[in-house]
């Protein structure tokens, strides 16, 4: 693999068997992403955007094809190893934030460090506070998620995604549940992270996304119709 291309998808196909026959969520998708890129995956509902993100984050497996993230062929790794790998290498951000409701914002951010044991126990709190400060909500650290606005919760979710200092950030419609002003703040945050060397891949419905991202991958019926990879 080219050292510059941190992510490479080769011939990735995902099918689902249903009552109506075989459904192709992705068809023979090829894609290369370089380090520090901020990639937007766009397309209509059902085009395969979320499936593709799930493949990249190791949440789902391809029916056929290969997915290499760095030196890891994640299509061959079992669930538990994937969880460990993901915890250290990938930060995931969801549309509905998915913060654990019984933990404070600070604790939500500390939880990945706890699971993956990447940061010494006595330094976790300091790092979590630093990350919250980086996303601009350090004053909310000791509150429960239910007391925060949508934008603040998404910032907390981003801080959590950065907890183990992963190389990759995968975001599934991170602005889909936010107002336009807050969405811009979040996109600005992602742009800054990409500029600092993180590779950010985001599924989005946002219009005028091109001003924020370095490349756009457009999907239609499970196929890439334009993008950085070969078509």
């Amino acid at each position: 693999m080219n050292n510059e291309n941190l992510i490479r998808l080769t011939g990735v196909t995902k099918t689902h068997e249903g009552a109506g026959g075989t459904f192709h969520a992705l068809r023979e998708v090829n894609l290369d992403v370089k380090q520090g890129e901020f990639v937007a995956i766009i397309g209509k509902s059902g085009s395969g955007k979320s499936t593709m993100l799930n493949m990249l984050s190791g949440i789902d497996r391809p029916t056929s094809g290969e997915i290499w993230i760095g030196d890891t062929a994640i299509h061959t790794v079992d669930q538990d190893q994937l969880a460990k790998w993901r915890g250290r290498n990938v930060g995931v951000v969801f549309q509905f934030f998915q913060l654990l409701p019984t933990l404070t914002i600070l604790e939500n951010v500390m939880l990945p460090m706890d699971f993956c044991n990447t940061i010494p126990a006595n330094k976790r709190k300091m790092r979590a506070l630093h990350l919250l400060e980086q996303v601009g909500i350090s004053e909310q650290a000791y509150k429960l998620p239910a007391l925060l606005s949508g934008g603040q919760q998404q910032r907390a979710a981003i801080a959590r995604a950065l907890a183990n200092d992963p190389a990759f950030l995968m975001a599934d419609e991170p602005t889909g549940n936010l107002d336009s002003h807050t969405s811009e703040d979040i996109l600005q945050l992602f742009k800054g992270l990409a500029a600092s060397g993180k590779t950010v891949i985001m599924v989005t419905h946002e219009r005028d996304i091109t001003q924020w991202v370095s490349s756009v991958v457009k999907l239609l019926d499970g196929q890439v119709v334009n993008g950085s990879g070969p078509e």
Partner: protein
Amino acid sequence: MISVRWRKVLRDLWINKTRTLLAVLAIAIGIFGVGTVLTGYSILTHEINANFLGTNPASAILYTENADDKLAAAVESLPGVTNAEPRRIVTARIQAGPNEYRRLLLFVIDDFNNLRVSTFKIERGNWPPADREILIERSALPLIKKQIGDTVIIQTPDNGQDHELRVIGIVHDPGQSPGDVDNIAYGYITLNTLESLGETRALNELRIVVDENSKDVPRITNVANQVRDVMEKRGYHVSQVEIPNAGKHPHSDQMDSLLFLLEVFGILALILSSILVASTVSALLSQQIRQIGVMKVIGARTYQIAGLYFGSVLLLGIGGLVIGIPAGVWAGRAFAVFTAKILNFNITSDFIPHWVYAVQILVGLSVPLLAAAIPVYRGSRITVQQAISDYGIGKNQFGTNRIDMLVSRMSGMGRPLMLSLRNTFRQRSRLLFTIGILAVGGATFMSAINVGESWSNTIDVAMNSRHYDIEVKFSQPYPMEYVEKTVLVVPGISEVEVWEQILAARINSDGTDGISFTLTGVPPATEMITFPIIEGRWLQSNDTNSLVINHELLEGAGMKVGDRIMLKTGKKEMEWTVVGAVREIGARRRGQNIAASAYVNRDYLSGITGMEGTTADIRIKTDQHSDAALRIVSGQLEQQFDSAGLHRISVNPSTERMQELKDHLVVIQMFLLLMAALVAAVGGLALASTMSINVMERTREFGIMQAIGACSDDVLQIVVIEGIVIGILSWLVAIVLAWPLGVIIGDFAGNIFIRARLEHVFSPLAMAGWLVLVILIGIIASAYPAWREARLPVQQVLAYE
């Protein structure tokens, strides 16, 4: 400082307070059941040694004419004999009121200051009794209504006269079954007092203790036979050698049975509560599926997720232990006190060994973990993909199977009621589980009442096979005609039949004494008894040495119809043939409820005993059969016998014996009801848990209903009706389960107390009673979650995810 993930565990438990409390209570009930059994068991086994074995009970009793201290000293020097002491037991009567007498066992002791075998202790008053003074066993006090310093009137068999003795002390004799339970009094007197009562001055028993209370029956028999040989060489005639149940209290079988039942129900409660824990954990996991997915996305591995939920269960277990252990200790101690009363024990120490706590802790932590293992395994192994695409309640769509279709076709009722009915069937596995637990509780409850009624019915049926109303035993034989004439003078008496009763002992093939039992001579065509025949036939008028045995001899002593057996009656030994076996419930000998007995042709028996034309045993039929009427006739009979100079041992109305037999079940029935309450409590918790989960899952639906015009009361009504419907469904299942359960428990109890299966009945009262209770449980268990739901603002409910 605790890690973040454990903070999550604690807060999840804290936030779902109701569910946590239900699970903790469920575990606590299981621990309570196990703790009660173990505590009761540990105290009682200790106290059996401290009380009963502490009396140095006799291993064997040798009956002779005149045992004395010299003989005892000689026997004590024999190998294997630890102690020997002469005694005599006289069956007498003690007056409990005007013309009202109770059976009295008088223990005659030569030297009260040198008790060695079957000892007892003074509790109050003076020791030892002087001449014409008596010590009374404490359990007989309610029966005779006397206290220290009072004078009691006693009649002994030999002269039937009234004798006054002064009560000078109250003793505790743990070797005797409680007098108030078995309707018998125990008194302790000196040889001089016995003589003053008109009885022969002689001690007729030699009680021996073998090898410091050996429980080895063959060894005891061997030593007893050697003692008999020695006695006979010294010129003592030994009429019988009796080996009491080695080292066992007369009521120890009842205690063991109660402990066994307690154990069964304790384990049942534990299993049910564990199922409840499994269900609670399962509900917790299904509610947190998305959270599990998120945790996996941020790096949690399967074992870490499983660890979190096992940790939750462990905390629930600790909560259960905190409540269950003290409650179990309290109940176990109360049970020990209750059982001690049945056994006439004193609880000298209620110390509970450490292993009892250790077992409870082990069970309280491991059983919930085991119960939760499958849901935790499934929940923690779910893939991220499955977890984050979980749609919760949408998975089980109502209307996809036949039951749903059937329920949905029900019409003609209000829409809220229809909604309640359909909701009931939405989560079918949860519904089945709740119905199952509640049904087991209901079946136990109904069984407790059914067993009580079946017992009562069995006693009624048994007593109906006895057609006499009063049983009279004279202290000596009197001419038949004179007895009949005397009895028939009393108004209200319609018929009298003369019997003969003696004690017989089987002679084993090796020449040793076998089981001893009552041999009753009756006219073969008797109308006083018609016992059900188990095998063979009843007596015929031309029968000679034919024997009809009762079920205790058939099943307990292993005799069979067709057997030819050697019997010793007094000094005579002769062969008899067993021609039939009958079920005779209520036969009694010295306070035992299971007594061996056999029936023979009276005229033939009289020929052997030389008692032709006389009788010491009669049965009487009266015109009226109520207890009150029989007591009046019995009183008149007493007066009539006094004036006719007929001395009697007992004049017993049959209703008294019937009540005595029925009272024996009160203990087991109370106990069953207690156990039913325990299981029903788990059932109630299960229903509360189910309703709480159901309501939580439908939060958004209730919001929608409220948004389209339903008021809080409508929501409350829908949920409470659902609770009631589940209760009624469980009641139907409980009815089906109650019959076999009642038969099993009833026959178990029957075997302990009367060695017979019960005549089973199904009580409508039990059915109706449980229906009312289960509806109440349904209302209580569903009202709280419904009320909590109904008071939430609509916007909050609609925003619920």
